[in-house]
């Protein structure tokens, strides 16, 4: 597809986006404590499942989709970049609504954000060479295209600066940190909705010109992510509440990080435009699909969440060794062996 002279993001949009990235990442940091980092190790088994879904499956899926749908190289590279992204604070909110394990979601976000420093450059170098070569063939005599690994690393570090600042605020004042977290979420939502609606309206011609395969890739990446996270964690023995958290964490990627990387490392408009377009499409569809998935999971999860909560409260009040014995047939098979039922301690 041909972008011509289209300017995907005007200077104003870029500024807005930059502010949003800083605010979102700051808000994310404001919700984190050192205890969350420690909790990662306590839940290492589940976090590992999430890790495999996020950094094992998602990039592979992105790579596969790009191949099968024969995406243009820049779009393909953007898709793979999205696939390698860590989770963001959005997934924590959706997990809350889906009655998933929010603490686990936070742990996974924490772990994946740190791991991303290593994993993103590594995975990009693993999956993109094929498409980079394609660009080389197309350009023939033009300047050589390479994935600027060092720049990506720098932009990732830059993105982590507001996160660290948020954590410091959280350390200083809990009340302000909570306010910052909520304000950030609220502002981010307004900016996201604004950016999506304005770009979609402004570039309706581009929407029409985008081949269906690109839409398909943008939609399926998230949806397959949800499905894989949900079922893979089930086969690996994760209880329902954690299943829901892992599912959402896998499917929802930290979009702002992608924008940050793109804007900071690819100055060439011809390169960055298709990549931005892919990211915008993904962001648009993920907002819708994750809302729907969350609603489904929420409905399905009500009973499980109540059972788990009851067990937690019983153990807290009656002693850690208390076992809640429900009447025969009260618990459905899917949660009878759930660790949250008292079979073994919170893992």
């Amino acid at each position, binding site marked *: 597809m041909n972008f011509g002279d289209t300017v995907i993001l005007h200077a104003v949009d870029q500024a807005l986006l930059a502010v949003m990235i800083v605010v979102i990442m700051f808000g994310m940091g404001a919700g984190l404590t050192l205890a969350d980092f420690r909790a990662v190790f306590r839940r290492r088994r589940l976090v590992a499942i999430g890790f495999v879904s996020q950094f094992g499956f998602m990039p592979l899926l992105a790579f596969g989709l790009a191949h099968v749908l024969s995406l243009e190289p820049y779009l393909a590279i953007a898709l793979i970049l999205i696939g390698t992204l860590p989770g963001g604070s959005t997934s924590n909110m959706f997990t809350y609504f889906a009655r998933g394990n929010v603490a686990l979601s936070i742990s996974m976000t924490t772990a994946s954000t740190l791991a991303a420093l290593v994993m993103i450059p590594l995975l990009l170098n693993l999956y993109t060479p094929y498409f980079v070569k394609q660009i080389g063939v197309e350009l023939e005599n033009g300047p050589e295209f390479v994935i600027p690994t060092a720049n990506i690393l720098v932009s990732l570090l830059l993105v982590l600066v507001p996160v660290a600042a948020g954590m410091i605020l959280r350390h200083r004042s809990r009340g302000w940190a*909570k*306010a910052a977290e*909520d*304000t950030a979420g*609220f502002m981010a939502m307004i900016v996201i909705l604004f950016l999506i609606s304005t770009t979609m309206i402004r570039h309706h011609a581009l929407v029409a010109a985008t081949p269906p395969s690109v839409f398909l890739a943008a939609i399926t990446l998230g949806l397959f992510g949800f499905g894989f996270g949900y079922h893979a964690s089930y086969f690996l023995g994760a209880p329902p509440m954690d299943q829901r958290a892992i599912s959402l964490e896998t499917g929802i990627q930290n979009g702002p990080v992608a924008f940050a990387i793109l804007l900071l490392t690819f100055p060439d408009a011809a390169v960055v435009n298709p990549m931005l377009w892919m990211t915008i499409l993904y962001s648009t569809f993920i907002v819708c699909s994750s809302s729907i998935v969350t609603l489904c999971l929420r409905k399905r999860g009500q009973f499980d969440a*109540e059972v788990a909560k009851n067990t937690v409260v019983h153990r807290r*009040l*009656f002693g850690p060794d208390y076992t809640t014995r429900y009447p025969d047939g009260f618990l459905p098979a899917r949660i009878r062996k759930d660790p949250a039922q008292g079979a073994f301690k919170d893992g």
Partner: protein
Amino acid sequence: MLSSDIQSVAGIFRQSAERFGDLPAFATRLRGGRWQPLSFRDLYERGRALAVGLMELGLRKGDAVGIISDNRVEWILAEAGIQLCGGVSTPRGTDVTDADLAYMLEHAEIQVCLVESPRELERVDSLADQLPRLKHVVLLSGEVDGVLSLAELELNGRERLAERESELEERLASMTSDDLFTLIYTSGTTGKPKGVMLTHSNMLSQIRNVPLELTCTDRVLSILPIWHVFERMFEMYTLSRGVCSYYTSARTLGQDLLDVEPTFMGSAPRLWESLHDRILEGVRQAHPMRRLLFKMARFLARRHHASMAFLRSEIPQKPRGPRICIWTRKGVHLVRVSLLLPFYGFFNASVLEAVRQKAGGSLKATISGGGALPSHIDEFFTTLGIQVLEGYGLTETSPVLAVRVSGKRVRGTVGPVIPNTECRIVDMESNRVVWPDPEHPEQGCDQRGEIQVRGPQVMKGYRRDPELTHTVLSEDGWFRTGDLGCVTWNGCLKILGRAKSTIVLSNGENVEPEPIEARLTQCLHIDRVYLCGQDRRHLTALVVPDLQVFRSDQPDIHSLSDLAEDEQARRLILKEIKHVQAQSGDPRFARVQAISLLSSPFTVGEELTNLQKMKRHVIEKKYAEQIRLLYQSSAEVPS
């Protein structure tokens, strides 16, 4: 679900023991945040031992047994014992006055009385000369030489259980659903306590008909006085469903909400008022950013819920105008909901959730009964996302008559009448049934009159008082509630006040004091307000000022009596009252013209019932002089 062959409350204890076994039925707080559970099986087994123990004391089937105690786990054990040997429990809280206590024990012909602690034992002992029939007193907690304790009673029973088991079984088998389950003495608002006789079928019908869906995974915090009929019914309900009840108290409520994270609660309006105040106080002390976020969250939530209520036809007034207008309005609300939804969703998850955590965080809904829930409190909790289901009932109706249910959560009403219960609205003067009108089923909505009901929950009568029974209970089973109400267009019952508390001014105008009082209580400087004006030219009010608020501005004020003399405070409050009344558009005759500040607060047992309702006749009598002076001085003021 209760199996259909159960004939008595004793059957509930047995069925639950079989069904729920080791699950906790009740729990009480120990020290250090730990709680002690009592399983369904233990409750039943210990209840059986106690039943034999009571039989050993000579208790016959159908004998009344007194329980003078506040909420504690021994209470429910005692109740199990009494029910399992066919006795009739006759409970009261420890705040009962000596006169009422003596009257109740004598009137119910009680031979065995269980008391909470040595303190209550002393009181009963001091009344001994008025109680010739009383033979045995059992202590629920503590130890006094020569007095049987509950533990000893249980031990005695356990030893003899094998021997008398068949007798126990026979007794239970011979029980019919028409036998008495309990006698509840209500101090009511007038005169001598009345002994309300409730049968097993009264209670069982409630458990079967109350539209609640709780299961083994629910946790209920028990805060209402345990002898109060709503709490009794609710405990029987939770028992039959395998729900665990956690006993709390007003003192530890804040912490218990956080510890237990209840999913459901039965409560009185006062609890929600204090929770409302506490939450708002917390918000007021937060820094400006948080306050702003909370305001935005409320703003969005209020609009979201208002639109949803309109779309679901859950508004008290029928929307007027041609159909096209109504559909247009629905369309506008639909658009508003969808536009606000992402933002409301976000604020709901972040800001409102943080506030909800203070109320335990797991509350699915709560039921409020025993008095009208002020509409601003109602609205506040709805916007927070905590459903406060207002219900309506009387001791005489075991108690639930109506309750808001999903799909009929019409604010300002107490919801539709529960299944298997008939209701009619009878005009007070003409005695004509204004709703339902058999010839015009569409008509009669919003017509006010006395609420009368007929159903399986209506009491057998007042003990040893057929005359009084006759005045409220007609031959064909209609019970006169004495409450004014109407039925809204969407079939919900709306309570408009006590039929008897209506103030008739000398010019013939009628004023319902309760709704006005509820609105005035919202004023910042007012704690309680009582309207008077029966047979007078205009309304006046007795006000208990909110000492806390005054003190935060003027630290030199130490007590209510300081305030009572303060002319400035009186003016300030009167101004507030006038402002509120003008804003809410009360008619001129229903406006307060003068007020008098009281020098002491209203207290439970004196001016207030246990459910914090004002005893109007007591207040009228106690402050007669002050009211007279108030009218004398306000007569000089042109109204």
